[in-house]
């Protein structure tokens, strides 16, 4: 069974789903006409990027970078800890994404009040 490189297959799963999420989100942002759907697309892009960040920090058979008593035991037996930096960056990125989503949705509500529609092809007082 050693002939199969499981991490190769796993990388397809993890990277593939992350890139897939980014592409699906991009598709939604570019193609969809409804503003709320566009914001959903933005949050899907964010999710994909976050997953990509975590995936590059992962180390095979690693454990979380927390030195609790069990964690110290695990490190002593030779289990590596995964890279903590991408995780810290993702924490920041998630919160920033939430802030952007909130502002975007408030703009959607504001636009709906003025135009009585939330479809981008009906909102055309400015050139797109």
């Amino acid at each position, binding site marked *: 069974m050693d002939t199969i490189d499981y991490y190769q297959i796993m990388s397809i799963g993890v990277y593939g789903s992350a890139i897939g999420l980014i592409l699906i989100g991009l598709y939604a942002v570019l193609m969809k006409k409804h503003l709320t759907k566009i914001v959903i697309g933005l949050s899907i892009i964010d999710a994909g990027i976050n997953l990509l960040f975590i995936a590059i920090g992962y180390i095979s058979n690693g454990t979380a970078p927390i030195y609790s008593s069990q964690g110290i035991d695990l490190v002593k037996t030779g289990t590596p800890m995964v890279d903590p930096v991408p995780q810290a960056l993702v924490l920041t990125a998630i919160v*920033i994404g939430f802030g952007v989503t909130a502002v975007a949705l408030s*703009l959607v509500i504001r636009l709906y009040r003025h135009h009585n529609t939330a479809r981008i092809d009906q909102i055309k*007082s400015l050139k797109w």
Partner: protein
Amino acid sequence: MVISPVHYIAVPLLAAFLMPLLAKIHRELTRIVPGLVILYLGYVSVVLMNQVMAHGTIVEVIAGWNAPWGINLVYSPFTGFLASMMTAMAFVIWLYSYRFKKVDSQPALKYFILFMMLVTGTIGIVLTGDIFNFFVFLEITAISSYSLTAFYRDRDGAEAAFKYLLIGSFASAFILIAILLLYTQVGTLNMAQIAVRMHDVPTHMKITILILFLVGLGIEAEMFPLNGWAPDAYSQAPSPVGVTFAALVVKAGVYGLIRIIFTLFDVHGAYEYLIVMGAITLVMAELAAIRQKSLKRMLAYSSIGQMGVVMIAFGIGTNEAVFGAIFLMFNHAVIKGLLFMSGSYLVYNTPNKEIQYLSGYGMKMPLISLFFSLGALAIVGLPPFAGFWSKLYILIAAADNQMIGLIALILGVSIVEIVYYFRVVGRLYFGKPSKGSIMQKPTYGGVIAMSLLAIVILVVGFYPDVITPYIHNAADALLDKAQYIHSVLPNADLSQIQNLK
């Protein structure tokens, strides 16, 4: 307490957190406190600039961890010059927006918080020496810009803000992916160390990362074809915010682009890329500007065009060219600030802010029209105003490098600029006055702000020597990559770095 660059970030943040409480004490405090904070930052700028000119780059370490382990702020002559310029412009804009519109105390509080954070974000972008911290400040800038664009809660403002948000989200997504790929390749986030380790990165990876950065930052720096947000945001935002975009936000975007290309990467062809993109941006923007009916949109396109010139000058890459580019950034901030400030009073009550209704305003609003004409004369580069010198230096630098085509291009575009600016000025003074239009009386703060900018334009125009030593040092600091790396990482091995000048 010793003055240090971290005050640029910490003090405004502290004040921003404090302002909701101050608003409960007295309503007027919400308007005064940002001015005091920016004045204090001006004091910090003066102290630090003197220090930097005498002793060289200051590296401020955050949380006691030396570079490359922690975050650091780099206050070099270049970043310091930009930060001081932004502080000065922020003060002028604060004066201008002090009583720009009589809004309730609650919106005024929110406006000044957002404005102060916008200033903090742009200064943070310029000062930081860490690539992810750069991203965080970019997001602070972006979110406050979105909210400020929609601040009037009218129809088009919200639409422009949403458009800006959409494109800005793309930018941040691209920059985030670029940071991710960069981290996997170099294992660090410190800009100086990234520059040291860049030669180990495979070329195709380097190019992919650079393209991602260029797309992301090109959006912020209004590079063609990524500048779709700019005209709408400029024209629909409240006019102090439009000035802020022209004077601060775009400068921060250009700074990011320059820092990435000059310091972080050593890819051949990036400079030529800057020239080409700058030229395309310049031509497209000026051709669009001449077609505009709305004054603010025209100014916005003109601003994009000026950024094109800045990119061309940076792309030439010699000392004189960089000097000219930084000089132009300074001039553009001051002159475009004056143009936006006076222009927004000119079109205050006209429908759709269109130019055709401005006939004969030169008699009705003499002071404002005078300011506008001064700005128009300065920005097209007529002597003896400030814009002349920067354009001259850029042309000389292009001539030194035998780039005849570029000279022809810049001069040709200047003629286009002259045409559309003088169309407005001519209408102001020689058009037939129309009846029934209501003049908006400018606030005292606005008049003082515009006079300050006009004085700066005249003084720099007649005695460019008051500013050139700073700009010379700034250009040297930007081009001296080894010195940047050395001041951040004293023990770094510089032998393998390419493109050291």
